[in-house]
């Protein structure tokens, strides 16, 4: 029952997505470079490479990395 309530709540929340967000003229902050999801692709790639080589996990933000014999 609790699970059903949760699913119902999630479904009811879905249309709320369309009321989220901003008007086109309100995007001054969101358009800034530092507000992009990946601000420095080279640094992100280097970090992915380090952690892919030293840990059992990879990917998430983008594709799983790899292309390296280090793991």
């Amino acid at each position: 029952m609790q699970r059903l309530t949760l699913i119902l709540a999630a479904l009811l929340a879905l249309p709320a997505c369309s009321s989220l967000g901003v008007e086109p003229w309100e995007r001054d902050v969101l358009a800034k470079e530092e507000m992009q999801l990946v601000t420095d692709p080279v640094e992100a790639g280097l970090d992915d490479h380090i952690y892919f080589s030293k840990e059992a996990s990879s990917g998430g933000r983008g594709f799983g990395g790899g292309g390296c014999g280090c793991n």
Partner: protein
Amino acid sequence: MANYKTKDVAAALAAATCSLLGSAPIAPVLAQEDPGWDFNTALLYYGESDSRVEDVSLNFLARRTFVDDRALTLSLAVDTLTGATPGGALPMNTVQTFTSPSGNATYDVAGGAVPLDNTFLDTRYALTAAWQQPLGRLYTGSAGIGFSKEYDYTHAGVNFNLSRDFNKRNTTVSAGIAFSSDELDPVGGAPIPLSSMLDVGDTSNKRGNDSKDVLDLLLGVTQVINQNLLLQLNYSYSDASGYLNDPYKFLSVVDGVTGDTITRTPVGSGASHEFRFESRPEQRTKHSLYAQAKAWLGGRVLDLSYRYMTDDWGIDSHTLEARFKMPFGERQYLEPHLRFYTQNEADFYQSSLVSGQPLPQFASSDYRLGKFDAVTAGIKYGWETASGNDLSFRLEYYQQDGKIPAGQIIGNQASRELYPGLSAVILGVSYRFGG
């Protein structure tokens, strides 16, 4: 009368202007970039303590933006790796001799030390190219290729991504697919899984090249919450098949009571103890959930992300990461970075094999498949020039602390430091400039 007419025309013009503005394409999240080149260069040093792995990496990325938001991205990376890496054997109180991967030589490890293979040396070249463009008013497509080459490893991959904007471009849904095909050509050949380390000159336990294929799928939703907050949620699936072993990793074969590694007498020169090469399944499926929030806090920017990963090797991991960009002075900033990572061990992780017991189908003592926690703490200092170029320096410290499951520690092993552990320093310089 003439006056009225003029008024009507003005009103009509105003109405026409309004309707044009109203139906004009809505600006995407990222403002349209000016056509031209942008460059991103970085030099990175990664150095582990105790003379383990050192990597110097030189990176270059060029992005050419054309009108209508079409863009070409090219990247090149060169990595030089040196140092020693744990082979997977347990430490002993006495000297241990190992046959090197080439099968042509041996190396010794002192009593009490975690056995490291110091024959590790490599240079890696990696190239990528990607093309991105709008497809109609609401779709964006991209396609990319990647290639990398190491002494013993070659990678080739392709990827495609399609995204669609909804809800005044406040919601973006994207789907991607990537496929890679990798060739391994290990020094001395790929060992037969669970075969014994042999004497110098005996390569009967090695076979030639091998390969693996990886398929990745990615589904993502990006949602603008308000003027200062952006969220992303991704699900990714990865399926790897083929040769998934590390050809340079092996396990000690130990006595079931004392826990000491079984000695052997080489004919000529060769391994002084019993070691067997690892065996991993030939297939691995991973699922990840990734959530990221980007928040503008009155000029400061908080980047917070969390990833949960689970795979069919029995590994679950959690990664929590935060960056906080704080501007100060005239166009300068500081950005602290914290990352916490934890994983449990693979089902087939074993610190050693017990002599006289039947061999398991799969076994690996690779510390990266073991149970451990890791922390990264770092800080970046950056300076933006008046023309928008960005020079930054970062210093980070990475540490892993792991544990061998208590049930796997046998006899004398309890008094030895079994887990290799890892601490490393990361130093980076990055310069971004427009053409």
